[in-house]
């Protein structure tokens, strides 16, 4: 209680402090006068009396200081004064201030931009009410891999039996194309990567609580198959960008291919901030019924949906997961032949765009570290610069110290100054981040329209979190930069400073060492960043030159799309029609049915008898059952033997294998004609993708003969060509396949329009046609973006490091002007002096680079998952680092060396 009253009093005193100050002075003076009077009365002379009184009283200045402390909130006063002093000092040295602020701004700006991105993705809640209640149903398999992919069967099962959610929705994201390409022109004229629509359960809007801007949301009655016209609710973004925000849009019809019905009637427009449960540009939302085809409704393995639900109040996620697990065990596992056995159901938060589990956070660690490295480099640079400047203020602070300032106060003063610098850097960094997010980020995205559309909805503006982050980090940066110099300048030993000794021979070695360590640390981090960036850039570049192993410029895939009203017979007929017509096209050189393409295959274990040891060897391979003409359509180069022909069936027990498989199974021998064992279930033709085969040991095996060996290619693994692959003949299908692989004698793009037409003629809907080139490019694209980001970061850090080194070397020369002058006077040639400076600089650079390289190798070993395919001794990256060394060394040492060479001994020795 006493403390509280004291606090109030003190705060009050703070505001009255000027008056109180005068009062105090008057009071003390009066006391002093009283003492003087007494002494005078005792007979002393006036001077004696005054001296005696003063002695009795004590040190006035100190008493005043203590008295002030006792009565007011002094530290605030001090803070205000220190800030004023800091601002004045910084203004008097604009060059220094700007350089340091700019250095800090680089590190702070980059990190602010990153945090803004993070904030938008992972911290800002979804723009629906009570987003904390939203959870997604997640499956964990035995190995701990988690997935949110569910089928409609799952959805219906859970929906009908659960009691823990107040509502459960199913969402599927799919690509569509406008029926007429010119119908939609983006307001900005930007190229769109394709349009995406979400097919959702009709309670979507109700459960999520999405605000509407126009019209009505989807309703359960929209699922009624007998409706005259299917409906769509548009996203606000689509409405604004493509329909011009037309208020009369309700009732208009949009036409898209890829949906079961092409013509959709617009019934509503969602509110402005809503993009769905995940970021990404969408046309809008349609009822699940709009998805074409039939099989996905009853197939447990058609896991295209995510299920999100609103948890009821009072139920914990764990409780809910238990109930869902029970439902899964009774309904799903038992009824669907043991699929999903052993899977655990959990609930994961769905309240943000990016709901990061700790595991995912760990994956992002390298990215965070890289940004952190730039920050550290900036701070080290700033620290160096502040340190250098503080040397020139030693005299001032020595005097202050001698006059009675406590070390604490001086430290406070200096730290305040560097924090002000930090905040200034933060303000500049804020501007830099804003600029980066406005210009650099969209530019990066425009390189890959997929990424741009995929991250729409991320609100990359600053909110209170970003502001708090930037402020905190700025203060930290200021502290980090200024603490060391402050400690140094306020040290107790005043004499050298007071005597204005410059750093002559060997003095302040410790300080130079500190500076050198800082510079080496900066260089190490920079070179590590450059190295990593080099690795990433190299790999990204290499993907452009990846030899896929086959000619992919003339290949297309086609998926026949059928309206939902088609029955099985109609679907089959339509597919056959497409097949026939495509085959007859003069532009088509070969055609084959295909499983999903590319990169589709399933792992399997095959075994082979080893004559050498008379034992059995098992080899892990990828296997794929392919129709007869598949391999020849693909034009996979044939090394030996033949591909399948029309007569090959699974009963013939033949197989084609890849070069690597041949090497692994029969090292050093001719593989053609050899036999190996596979589980019989493979050959029986039951290769539903994704279903794992277990119990290899007791499954009956059957032996196959190798009839052909194919060249290695990337069509099954985008990163690794040398995979062991076994092709088996697919059993003859009674139904026509949905996917076609088409080879054209010329560039694939030319045939796309014709294929569209054929598909439309057959089913009334345009098929989905992709060139294989596009499909491959999509896979590699993300690595390009990462490489760009890394490159930018590395570039920035290079700038900072060079500036730092330059500053340090210039300052060192400046400090040692006297020493250099003496040397020159004693006969050293200017060239020798310059060379000396050069050596010293290079020594630092080499140290820094070597350390940096060691650091990057260690990191590369740990972060292998990010960098698979590129070794730490990658020549391009090493070359870049060496280049870095050369550039930095030269740039940073050139001017200081020249300055050293030009030192005029007479001037140097006379100057102080």
């Amino acid at each position: 209680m006493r403390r509280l009253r004291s606090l109030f009093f003190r705060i009050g005193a703070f505001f009255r402090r000027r008056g109180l100050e005068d009062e105090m002075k008057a009071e003390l003076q009066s006391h002093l006068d009283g003492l003087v009077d007494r002494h005078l009365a005792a007979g002393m002379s006036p001077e004696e009396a005054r001296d005696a009184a003063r002695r009795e009283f004590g040190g006035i200045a100190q008493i005043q200081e203590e008295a002030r402390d006792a009565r007011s909130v002094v530290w605030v006063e001090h803070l205000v004064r220190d800030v004023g002093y800091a601002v004045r000092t910084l203004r008097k040295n604009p060059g220094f201030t700007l350089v340091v602020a700019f250095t800090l701004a680089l590190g702070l700006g980059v990190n602010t931009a990153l945090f803004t991105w993070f904030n938008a993705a992972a911290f800002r809640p979804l723009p629906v009410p009570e987003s904390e209640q939203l959870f997604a149903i997640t499956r964990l398999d035995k190995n701990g891999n988690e997935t949110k992919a569910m089928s409609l069967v799952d959805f219906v099962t859970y929906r009908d039996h659960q009691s823990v959610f107040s509502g459960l929705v199913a969402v599927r994201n799919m690509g569509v194309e406008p029926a007429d390409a010119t119908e939609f022109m983006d307001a900005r004229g930007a190229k769109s990567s394709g349009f995406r629509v979400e097919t959702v359960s009709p309670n979507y809007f109700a459960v999520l609580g999405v605000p509407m801007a126009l019209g009505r949301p989807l309703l359960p009655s929209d699922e009624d198959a007998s409706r005259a016209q299917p409906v769509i609710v548009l996203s606000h973004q689509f409405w604004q960008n493509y329909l011009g925000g037309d208020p009369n849009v309700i009732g208009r019809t949009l036409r898209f291919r890829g949906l079961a019905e092409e013509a959709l009637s617009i019934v509503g427009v969602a509110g402005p901030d809503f993009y769905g449960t995940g970021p990404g540009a969408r046309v809008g939302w349609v009822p699940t019924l709009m998805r074409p085809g039939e099989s996905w409704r009853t197939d447990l393995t058609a896991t295209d949906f995510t299920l999100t639900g609103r948890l009821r109040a009072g139920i914990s996620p764990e409780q809910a997961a238990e109930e869902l697990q029970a439902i899964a065990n009774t309904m799903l596992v038992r009824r669907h032949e043991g699929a999903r056995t052993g899977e655990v159901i959990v609930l994961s938060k769905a309240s943000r765009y990016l709901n990061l589990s700790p595991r995912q956070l760990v994956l992002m660690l390298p990215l965070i570290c890289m940004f952190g490295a730039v920050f550290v480099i900036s701070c080290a640079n700033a620290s160096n610069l502040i340190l250098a400047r503080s040397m020139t203020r030693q005299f001032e602070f020595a005097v202050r110290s001698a006059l009675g300032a406590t070390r604490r106060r001086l430290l406070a003063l200096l730290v305040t100054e560097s924090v002000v610098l930090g905040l200034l850097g933060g303000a500049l960094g804020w501007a830099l981040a804003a600029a980066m997010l406005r210009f650099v980020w969209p530019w990066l995205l425009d390189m890959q329209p997929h990424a741009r559309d995929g991250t729409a909805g991320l609100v990359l503006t600053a909110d209170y979190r970003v502001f708090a982050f930037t402020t905190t980090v700025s203060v930290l940066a200021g502290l980090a930069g200024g603490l060391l110099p402050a400690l140094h300048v306020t040290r107790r030993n005043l004499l050298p400073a007071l005597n204005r000794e410059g750093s002559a021979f060997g003095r302040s070695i410790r300080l130079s060492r500190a500076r050198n360590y800082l510079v080496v640390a900066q260089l190490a981090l920079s070179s590590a960043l450059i190295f990593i960036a080099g690795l990433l850039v190299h790999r990204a570049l290499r993907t452009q030159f990846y030899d896929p192993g086959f000619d992919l410029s003339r290949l297309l895939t086609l998926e026949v799309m059928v309206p939902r009203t088609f029955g099985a017979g109609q679907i089959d007929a339509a597919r056959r029609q497409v097949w026939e017509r495509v085959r007859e096209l003069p532009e088509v050189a070969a055609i084959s049915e295909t499983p999903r393409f590319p990169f589709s295959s399933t792992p399997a274990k095959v075994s082979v008898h080893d004559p050498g040891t008379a034992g059995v060897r098992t080899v892990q391979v990828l296997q794929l059952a392919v129709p007869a003409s598949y391999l020849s359509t693909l034009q996979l180069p044939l090394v030996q033997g033949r591909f399948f022909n029309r007569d090959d069936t699974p009963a013939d027990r033949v197989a084609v294998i890849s070069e690597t498989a041949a090497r692994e199974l029969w090292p050093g021998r001719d593989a053609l004609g050899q036999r190996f064992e596979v589980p019989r279930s493979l050959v029986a033709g039951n290769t539903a993708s994704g279903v794992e085969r277990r119990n290899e040991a007791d499954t009956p095996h059957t032996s196959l003969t190798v009839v052909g060996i194919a060249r290695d290619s990337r069509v099954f693994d985008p990163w690794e060509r040398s995979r062991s692959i076994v092709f088996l003949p697919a059993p003859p299908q009674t139904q026509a396949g949905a996917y076609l692989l088409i080879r054209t004698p010329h560039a694939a793009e030319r045939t796309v329009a014709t294929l569209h037409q054929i598909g439309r003629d057959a089913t009334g809907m345009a098929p989905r046609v992709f060139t294989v080139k596009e499909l491959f490019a999509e896979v590699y694209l993300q690595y390009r973006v990462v490489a760009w980001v890394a490159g930018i970061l590395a570039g920035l850090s290079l700038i900072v490091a060079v500036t730092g080194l330059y500053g340090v070397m210039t300052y060192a020369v400046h400090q040692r002007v006297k020493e250099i002058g003496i040397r020159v006077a004693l006969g050293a040639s200017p060239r020798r002096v310059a060379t000396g400076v050069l050596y010293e600089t290079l020594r630092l650079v080499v140290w820094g680079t070597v350390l940096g390289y060691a650091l990057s190798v260690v990191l590369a070993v740990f972060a292998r998952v990010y960098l698979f395919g590129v070794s730490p001794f990658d020549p391009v990256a090493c070359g870049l680092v060496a280049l870095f060394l050369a550039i930095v060394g030269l740039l940073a040492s050139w001017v200081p060396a020249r300055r050293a060479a030009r030192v005029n001994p007479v001037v140097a020795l006379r100057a102080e």
Partner: protein
Amino acid sequence: MLILRALQHEPRHGLAIADRIHLVSADVLRVEQGSLYPALYRLEAEGLIRAEWGVSEKNRKARFYELTAAGRKRLASEIEHWERMAAAVRVVLSKA
């Protein structure tokens, strides 16, 4: 505590307080006079004494301090505490 005691009977200004302590302790306690003031201000902030400008005996402007009710209470408890301490110490010393 000493300051509070010095103000027990009547308001005094700084110099007078110093004198009083000096006098009553029979010269044993000699404080650097100025160091009174931080203590005075602290006590003032805590609300144990209050101050007012007035005129001293020598016709000089001075700030007079007097005890508040809270101050009196505090003085009493401090004295009691001190005497208990002293008694305990005495007991310990005499036992030895």
